[in-house]
């Protein structure tokens, strides 16, 4: 029995703490691999110093958690006392039930409904930018409240109802009686409520996501939006620091409790220590964020002309995560450099997919000045009149754009968009397992490699592979073409290991899988971790995509947006971005720069015969879109 019990407890501890230990372990890894430990290093902790975006997101998260927990605790306690004192039975049960409902409601519902409410109220008072710190705070207080009430109410019920009368009897005013006697009696409930609120607020993603606007970002949102690439190991370092801090605080709290009965001095010391730790952390973080801002490389020479007429205004930029050079590893901090040059404050936030960005712009809940969507999405947004024409007279650096990226199908007259990055899909394979050099997409359907094959876990890219393999038009308006591709994909299910997006890095780096289609720029990240990996563009052709800078109709700071677009095209800026992002640049000043480390790189800048054999994805007819999405569901479940 006792052995079984010990095993059980050991297993429980392993399940609880193994993930945290693994994360802590890899935060000291000298490479960015999540599968191979290449040596002890503190470099991710050091890099954290440069990541002012994450540090400020963490700061936001902590401020938000503390504020919302404090306010919710005060309001919730008052509400609980009110409910407790209510005599009428029906009123009381109604109030209790009503406060409990938000806890049962799915977060997504709460998030969406709060966003709608905030946007609606803002429109009533005629405010364009509805969402921000205030709305997130309101939302967090809202979902924290029931937990406080739920913790305080039972404590009130347990408390002798005569306590407050006894205090009044001994000379306290009713308010003093509540503070001196009832409050200490229900304090454990209040404290638990506070801690629960703090924790819930700390890791809330869904509700924050819907209610935060352009200007405000929490840590969960930041980490979640880092998915254009992978989650950076600096996040392991950050999470480790957070975890250790919480651990230390918990130990201190427990120590102060267990010493309680022996002496009076120790708990007081412990309390002082806890407060000191908190203060130290806040100070350290503030210090780090100030230092990290100053450490950043922002020095730059510019070609275009920039004035400071718009200094003091704010520019809201909405881009993919990890899609701009941000000062990490002594690279150029593009946004800070722009701020320094023009005095315009850049508010930078991330999206994870074109569809998500589209939904947010369409909802009109936030006023972005700059967005960077992909080709087909630009096509759709132009059709729906969601984009503003650009004033090219203010974008002198447009002349650097390669002729091959002008007059593209989605913006044939070059009115709405300026290309930012170019990418192509290719085939990544492990040369240790796949010994012959593949040249066709067919290898992804080859039973010899069954169990070693990965493919995209998004419909358009997955269909694309099948369509290229079958020689079909990727933008076909013929349903039969799509059905054929779907059959091909169903056939592929037999040999497939998994459909993946970000997990592709881990699986390919560790040798867990041998074949995967993915974006060319990301190949180098994987190659860094596993030298056996190779890349090829299959002979049937492949997908090419362009992400371009656009300005939505809802933009508030159009002139600053023009200045920013021109700035992104600056040779030094574009070079820094190209080096950082690892995607192909459409900027000739980069392509022809001798110092560019990817100059003439055969993968990022393949020869003309490969480039000419590519297709853009177009925005399809809604009917076709619905049709292939239904096929996609069938593919995934069969």
């Amino acid at each position, binding site marked *: 029995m006792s052995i079984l019990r010990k095993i059980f407890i050991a297993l429980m501890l392993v399940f609880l703490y193994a993930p945290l230990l693994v994360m802590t372990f890899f935060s000291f890894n000298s490479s960015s691999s999540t599968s191979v430990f290449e040596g002890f290093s503190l470099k991710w902790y050091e890099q954290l110093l440069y990541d002012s975006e994450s540090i400020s997101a963490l700061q936001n998260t902590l401020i938000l958690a503390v504020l919302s927990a404090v306010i919710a605790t005060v309001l919730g306690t008052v509400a609980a006392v009110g409910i407790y004192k209510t005599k009428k039975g029906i009123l009381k049960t109604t109030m209790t039930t009503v406060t409990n409902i938000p806890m049962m409601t799915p977060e997504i519902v709460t998030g969406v409904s709060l966003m709608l409410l905030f946007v609606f109220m803002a429109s009533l008072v005629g405010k364009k930018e509805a969402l921000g710190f205030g709305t997130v705070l309101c939302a967090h207080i809202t979902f924290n409240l029931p937990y406080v009430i739920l913790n305080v109410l039972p404590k009130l019920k347990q408390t002798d109802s005569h306590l407050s009368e006894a205090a*009044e*009897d001994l000379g*306290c005013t*009713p308010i003093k009686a509540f503070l001196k006697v009832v409050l200490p009696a229900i*304090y454990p409930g209040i404290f638990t409520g506070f801690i629960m609120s703090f924790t819930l607020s700390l890791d809330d993603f869904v509700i924050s996501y819907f209610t935060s606007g352009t200007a405000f970002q929490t840590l969960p949102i930041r980490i979640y939006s880092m998915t254009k690439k992978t989650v950076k190991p600096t996040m392991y370092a950050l999470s480790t620091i957070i975890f250790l801090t919480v651990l230390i605080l918990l130990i201190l709290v427990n120590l102060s409790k267990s010493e309680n009965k022996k002496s009076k001095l120790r708990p007081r010391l412990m309390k002082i220590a806890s407060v000191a730790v908190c203060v130290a952390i806040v100070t350290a973080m503030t210090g780090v964020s100030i230092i990290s801002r100053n450490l950043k490389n922002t020095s730059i020479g510019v070609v275009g002309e920039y004035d400071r007429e718009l200094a003091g205004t704010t520019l809201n930029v909405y881009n993919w995560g990890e899609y701009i050079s941000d000062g990490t590893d002594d690279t150029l901090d593009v946004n800070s450099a722009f701020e320094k040059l023009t005095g315009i404050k850049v508010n930078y936030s991330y999206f994870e997919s074109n569809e998500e960005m589209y939904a947010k712009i369409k909802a009109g809940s936030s006023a972005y000045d700059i967005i960077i969507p992909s080709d087909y999405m630009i096509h759709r947004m132009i059709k729906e009149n969601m984009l503003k024409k650009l004033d090219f007279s203010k974008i002198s650096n447009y002349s650097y754009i390669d002729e091959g990226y002008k007059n593209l199908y989605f913006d044939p007259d070059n009115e709405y968009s300026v290309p930012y990055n170019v990418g192509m899909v290719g085939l990544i394979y492990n040369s240790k397992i796949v010994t012959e050099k593949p040249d066709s997409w067919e290898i992804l359907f080859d039973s010899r490699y069954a169990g070693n094959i990965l493919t995209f876990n998004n419909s358009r890219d997955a269909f694309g592979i099948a369509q290229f393999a079958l020689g079909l038009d990727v933008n076909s308006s013929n349903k039969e073409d799509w059905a054929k591709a779907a059959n091909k994909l169903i056939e592929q299910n037999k040999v497939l290991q998994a459909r993946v997006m970000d997990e592709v890095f881990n699986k390919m780096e560790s040798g867990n899988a041998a074949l995967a289609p993915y974006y060319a720029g990301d190949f180098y990240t994987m190659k860094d971790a596993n030298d056996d990996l190779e890349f090829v563009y299959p002979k049937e052709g492949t997908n090419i995509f362009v992400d371009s800078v656009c300005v939505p109709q809802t933009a508030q700071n159009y002139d600053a947006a023009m200045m920013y677009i021109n700035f992104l095209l600056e040779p030094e800026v574009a070079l820094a971005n190209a080096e950082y992002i690892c995607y192909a640049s459409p900027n000739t000043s980069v392509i022809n720069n001798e110092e560019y480390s990817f100059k003439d790189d055969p993968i990022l800048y393949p020869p003309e015969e490969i480039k000419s054999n590519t297709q853009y994805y177009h925005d399809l007819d809604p009917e076709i879109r619905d049709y292939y999405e239904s096929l996609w569901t069938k593919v995934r479940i069969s």
Partner: protein
Amino acid sequence: MEKENIVELKNISVAFDGEQVLDGLNLEIKDKEFITLLGPSGCGKTTTLRLIAGFLEPDSGDVLFGGEKINGVPAYKRQVNTIFQRYALFPHLNVYENIAFGLRVKKRPEKEIKEKVAEMLRLVNLTGLEKRHIDTLSGGQQQRVAIARAIANHPKVLLLDEPLAALDLKLRKDMQKELKKIQEQLGITFIFVTHDQEEALTMSDRVVVMDGGKIQQVGSPQDIYNEPQNAFVADFIGESNIVDGKMLRDYYVEFSGQKFDCLDKGFNENELVDVVVRPEDVDIVSPEKGMLKGQVTSVAFLGVHYEIIVDIGGFKWMIQTTDEHFVGDNVGLFIEPDAIHIMKKSEYSGLYGDYSSYSEEMDEMNEMAEEAAE
């Protein structure tokens, strides 16, 4: 010399949710007396106490303290302190801090507080337990802390709301004596609320018997016991056989078909009355010597005495005796004139004093129901 009234209640009425809890109550409480409000649950005794404490305001009527009207004066400004039924000790404070609470609120100097608390602890025999936490104390000890806490403030009047109800019988008896001793030592007014008649009789200078929001009788324990004013009081205080009677003339009454000499007078001739005979005042004799004759229908042994139910012409009498009798015995009852007490007819007539439905079980059930209702 007649003592001054410290508390006066004048024509007080209180209703909760349309239910009359106190109905035109008048009561004068003298300085330094030990007065007990006695009655079944729901009689309004606790409500009366809360009125004096200031936790409740009357719908009509006045509360006077030392001759001054104190309606509307909040509890924390009144010179009274309360000992609550479940003590309401502050769980987050130790014994010392609980007792010091009132003094701290009044911002007394630390030295005075220290002396005062020490004095209180001596008074209630808790010296040495200053640092103990409330939840580590026994029920009796908690009770003492509650007393010390309430009197540390030097109240002129101490209100006690069934303070002994939660203690077991033995402890309760000890605490009764101790409370009485403390009251004499401090020389302040105690207003004590209880539903336990024995407790009321043991401790009080005066007892106020209440029912239905009204005072039924006020008097010394002896008065209340020996000269109950109506069937309710007679039944509530101790056991009573209450039978219908007719006052033939002064000092001469007829009941149960027989005529008896008695010590009461002042009734109209042939006035219908309630006749009270206490069970311990009846002697059981042989049938031929008895004034009343009947048959024993039940016998219960209670230790000090037997409780015997005798059927006399359909009316069941309770008799307490130290002699043993058996069910089915034919016995005679002998009643001395001074054992007979005559009361005027009241709304309670006919409701009490017949033991035909009496059983030990019933009594216990009633008691339990009463406690649950508290």
